[in-house]
């Protein structure tokens, strides 16, 4: 009887302890999402409408290509696919560069691991706007990079205002988010598994291909998710490093918001969210079946 009382008291205490977190989550996660959805499906007089959603898919505008020819395109679809393309390129670069780095760190001594991870995390402590501005000064035609190249007598390159500059900015910003999840999976990998692979006839490369990589897939997937998703919706980077020439979906949302088109901004955000959720669910599914050994 007594223990039962204690238990129910405990349960109550647990509930009370959880309550502030629940309220917090509701206030800052759930309510904003509801607002986004609400605004996406209403017009300025708060009546239900699908207009904002359809506008995203159908709005057209005329663009002038570099050779002067004019073309009519679906504005937001173009912006959306451009965002996806740049985000995918950035993610692939992050993965190709990040995986070996994560692997090398995970194999290093405990001391080196600690230092390396701290070094990787330090840039994350700085505001990304400041970091983006820093890249502007590096990449400008008269910036640090070009001054350095000229010093070496290699001439200068024009990079600011190109897609490359935007990709560099994205890769730089999201690189740690690729390394850290891969590193944490690799660091936990049982070294006996690597010895077993060698014992069973695998060279170092075969061990990497047949054991290390498949077992690190969960880290790779969460790395991809953590880079791809924020880089699809990123803004400012393209405005600053792309000289505003590569309008991305994040910039579109920001633009509509600044122009006080709250309902359309909400609609774009809502559509983006739905697409990303579907993509994530798809990815989870893929990795679950891989990681479980396809049983």
């Amino acid at each position, binding site marked *: 009887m007594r223990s039962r009382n204690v238990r129910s008291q405990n349960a109550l205490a647990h509930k009370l302890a959880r309550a502030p977190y629940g309220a917090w989550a509701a206030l800052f996660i759930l309510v904003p999402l509801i607002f986004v959805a609400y605004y996406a499906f209403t017009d300025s007089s708060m009546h239900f409408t699908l207009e904002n959603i359809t506008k995203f898919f159908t709005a057209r505008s005329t663009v002038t290509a570099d050779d002067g020819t004019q073309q009519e395109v679906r504005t937001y679809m173009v912006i959306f696919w451009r965002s996806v393309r740049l985000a995918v390129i950035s993610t692939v670069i992050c993965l190709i560069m990040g995986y070996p780095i994560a692997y090398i760190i995970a194999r290093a001594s405990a001391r080196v691991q600690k230092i390396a991870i701290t070094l990787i995390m330090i840039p994350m402590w700085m505001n990304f706007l400041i970091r983006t501005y820093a890249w502007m000064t590096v990449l400008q035609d008269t910036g640090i990079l070009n001054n350095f190249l000229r010093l070496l007598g290699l001439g200068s390159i024009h990079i600011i205002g190109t897609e490359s500059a935007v990709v560099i900015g994205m890769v730089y910003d999201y690189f740690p988010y690729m390394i850290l999840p891969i590193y944490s999976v690799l660091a936990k990998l*049982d070294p*006996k*598994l690597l*010895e*077993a*692979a*060698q*014992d*069973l*006839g*695998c*060279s170092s490369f*075969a061990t990497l291909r*047949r*054991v290390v990589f*498949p*077992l690190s897939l969960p880290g790779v997937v969460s790395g991809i998710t953590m880079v791809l998703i924020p880089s699809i919706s990123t803004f400012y980077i393209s405005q600053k490093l792309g000289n505003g020439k590569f309008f991305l979906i994040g910039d579109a949302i920001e633009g509509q918001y600044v122009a006080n088109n709250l309902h359309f901004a909400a609609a774009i955000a809502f559509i983006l969210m739905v697409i990303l959720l579907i993509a994530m669910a798809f990815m989870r599914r893929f990795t679950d079946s*891989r*990681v*479980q*050994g*396809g*049983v």
Partner: protein
Amino acid sequence: MKRIIELRGVSKAFDGETVLDAIDLNIYDNEFITLLGPSGCGKTTTLRLIGGFETPDQGDVVFLGERINDLPPHKRNVNTVFQKYALFPHLNVYDNVAFPLKEKKVPKAEIHEKVTEMLKLVKLTGFEKRNVTRLSGGQQQRVAIARALVNHPQVLLLDEPLGALDLKLRKDMQQELKNIQKATGITFVFVTHDQEEALSMSDTIVVMSEGRIQQIGTPIDIYNEPENAFVADFIGESNILDGVMRQDFRVTFSGHTFECVDKGFEKNEPVDVVVRPEDVDIVSKDKGMLQGVVTSVTFMGVHYEIIVDIGGFKWMIQTTDFVDVDEEIGLFIEPDAIHIMKKSEYSGMFGDYSSFSMELDELSYAESEPDE
């Protein structure tokens, strides 16, 4: 017998601490050889040197007459069953066993045939599609054995493979491993700290302590003719006494001169005398060669384990006769129950049961469980 592996004067140190001290060891074809010793004696390091996971600081590892010190593990015709099995969690049972064959680019049909044969050998037919992480410890063990044997290595290394299994399963697996070894004819090098396991499975036992080999021999030799106090104490229970060899076949200990079967010692040479607890007969006080007082009696099922105080030295005796605590008894020891050993660095360290308690014994075993 064909010699497969030779260790010649192999030494190994980690962080300046000597783990192996000039080991010489021959391993022969079709042999079940066990490296036995307490935690930290160097047995696992010896295994890893043979497997190629460590290179010796000094000395040579020789495989069929060829020095292989620097040959990487994947080029050695030796496979390992790891302590915690090290199965690949992303592969099912079939693919784990097929793993080494795929690396060798064996044709699919042949892989299927070999994997099926191996799973049959370890009694896991029908488990092909199972996820290895959902198997029991004993089943994982079998997969690990099948995977290590599928390539038909010349030598199979087993690193305390039964340590994680419960007692009943361990006994079954001991028998089964022995059968697999006989059926395949592959040399097994088995590492354990469990002396019973070593005695019941091995053709040859290598007793190790502090990075040195103490004795190499058959289980019967090791048990009956231990070379020093360490071996006598580590293998089974032993009363180890200070004695003096009067002449051939005559030894004095505990204030009595006994007839024995050992010779070849110098006159009046101090020696260590081993008397196994099961080799002592309890007789009435007046008929005994030695007299003592029973200080404790423990019922063990098959026998009683009693501790007898003889002149301040506590003997352990295993008997089926009931005696009571504080009873005065006599001991009778046959000549062939007495084994004489030369004095060694281990003299005086073992073989007195004055501080003996079952609990302590178990505790010290539990402590020596973890991997060195």
